Each structure stands twice: as structure tokens, then as C-alpha cells.
């Protein structure tokens, strides 16, 4: 298990699986409203970032490409958050 976790891709996969389970669970218990929306977006953000950094291997890439891809994730999350915030008003 310790050896398994030495590989950043294995660590990312494990976190992604747990995070997917949490999102599924939030759906099962019918979580809704501001707290649920923020939690699910935060989980999606963390998952997306892991895919960008550890699967796409942009952690060691030139800064511009990290900024472009992580920037996309921030942009998408912010727009979704804004739309949901409008819907809650």
C-alpha cells in the first residue's frame, strides 16, 4: 500500500475515486442548496485539478500551460457558481 502511494498517478486515482463517491452520496441523500452546490463544485474543482496536474502531467509543465488549464477550471467553476447563485436569489 505504501509502495502503491509512491506513484502520484495512483494517489490521484485513489482521491478521485473517493471524491466521486462523496458526490454520488450527496446526490443519494438529496443534498441541495448553497452548501451542497459549493461542496460539489469544490469537489469537482479538486478532481479536475488532479487530472490536470497528475494525469495530464502538467505539474512539471511550463507555467503558461498550467495557468491555461487550471484557469479554464476556475473559469468554468466560477460561471457555474455565478449561475447557481443567481438561481438561489
Amino acid at each position: 500500500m505504501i509502495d502503491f502511494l509512491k506513484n502520484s498517478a495512483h494517489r490521484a486515482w485513489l482521491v478521485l475515486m473517493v471524491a466521486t463517491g462523496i458526490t454520488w452520496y450527496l446526490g443519494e441523500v438529496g443534498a441541495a442548496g448553497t452548501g451542497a452546490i459549493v461542496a460539489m463544485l469544490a469537489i469537482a474543482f479538486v478532481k479536475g485539478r488532479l487530472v490536470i496536474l497528475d494525469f495530464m502531467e502538467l505539474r512539471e509543465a511550463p507555467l503558461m500551460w498550467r495557468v491555461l488549464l487550471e484557469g479554464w477550471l476556475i473559469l468554468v467553476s466560477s460561471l457555474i457558481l455565478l449561475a447557481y447563485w443567481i438561481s438561489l436569489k
Partner: protein
Amino acid sequence: MPAMTSVALTSPEAHTKRLPGDLAIWFFILAELLAFAVFFSAYAFARAKNVEMFNLYQQTLDRNLGALNTVLLITGSWFVVLAVQAAHRGDQKAISRNILLGWLCGGGFLTVKIIEYAAKFGAGISMSTNTFYMFYISLTFFHFMHVILGMVILTILWFQARKGVYGSHDANGLESGAAYWHMVDLLWIVLFPLVYVMR
């Protein structure tokens, strides 16, 4: 996180910064991501105007199948990362084996999605049923097409890997295809909570 940034900048690996694969694939990925950013925002803002309807019909989606598909795509992505790692250490057999495993995960995703569509279309649901289903079908189907393209790319990579094209000497083509496959995964990671769960 200033502490982490300074560590990264002063680490000995700082001078080895490189972009995996071809530069062109990254521009292509960026264009695809921006197209999906428009679709995701369009969904979210259309929902803001019609919250009750979106919340009502979202309940009819099969969250279990959506979550299962998330597991399949993430695992498929992980296998392809392992294929790239195998190439870097020159383990030929592990390259093609992991590409095949990634491909099978993609096939699993498509199978699950077809089961899901069959249930929806069987119930008489179509693009014209209402705005929610219009978004649900068009967003997931557009993504579905990307999974198919990703699997076509993996097929090519598998044949190339079997010919011994990739290894510690050169993994550029493999890395380019892998980056596209991870993009398909990244898009689903946003699409699943947005369309299936968030309310």
C-alpha cells in the same frame, strides 16, 4: 500557496519543465475545453431561469449510472497514465496492456451510456421534450462523441505500441493521445455533478 510555489521554483527539477506530447494537441484541447465551457455555462444559466423544471427532471436521471461512468473514465485515464509511465521506463508490454485496459474502460462507459439513453428514449424522451432534456441529451451526446474519438486514438496508440514505436527514447505520440483522453475525463468530471447532481 506561496510556500509551495517557492519550493517548486527552487527545486532541482525546475529547469526540466516540459509539456508532454505535441504542442498542437494542447491548442486543440484548449479549443475543446472552451467549447464545453460555453455549453456548461449555457446549461447553468438556462437553469437559473427555470430552476424548478430543471430540478424536477434532473431527478429522472440515473445518478448511479452517472457515477459508475465517472469511475470508468477516471480509471481509464489512470491506465493510460500507467501506459505513459511504462513507456518512460521502456516496459513495452505494459504500454500496450495499459492502453488496452484504458480502452476497455472507455468501452464500458459507452455501454453504460447506451443503456441510459435506451431507458430515456424508450420512455419517449427526446431533445424537444423540454429544455432540461435538450441540454441533457446534447451535452452528454457531444461528450459521448468525444469518448468515441478518444477510443479511436487509443486504438491507434495500441497498434503503434505493439509495433514498439513508444519507449524511453520517444513517447511523444503516446503522450499527445493520452492528453486528449484525459481531457475527455476532465470534461465528465464537471459534467456529471453539473447535470446529474447539483441542485
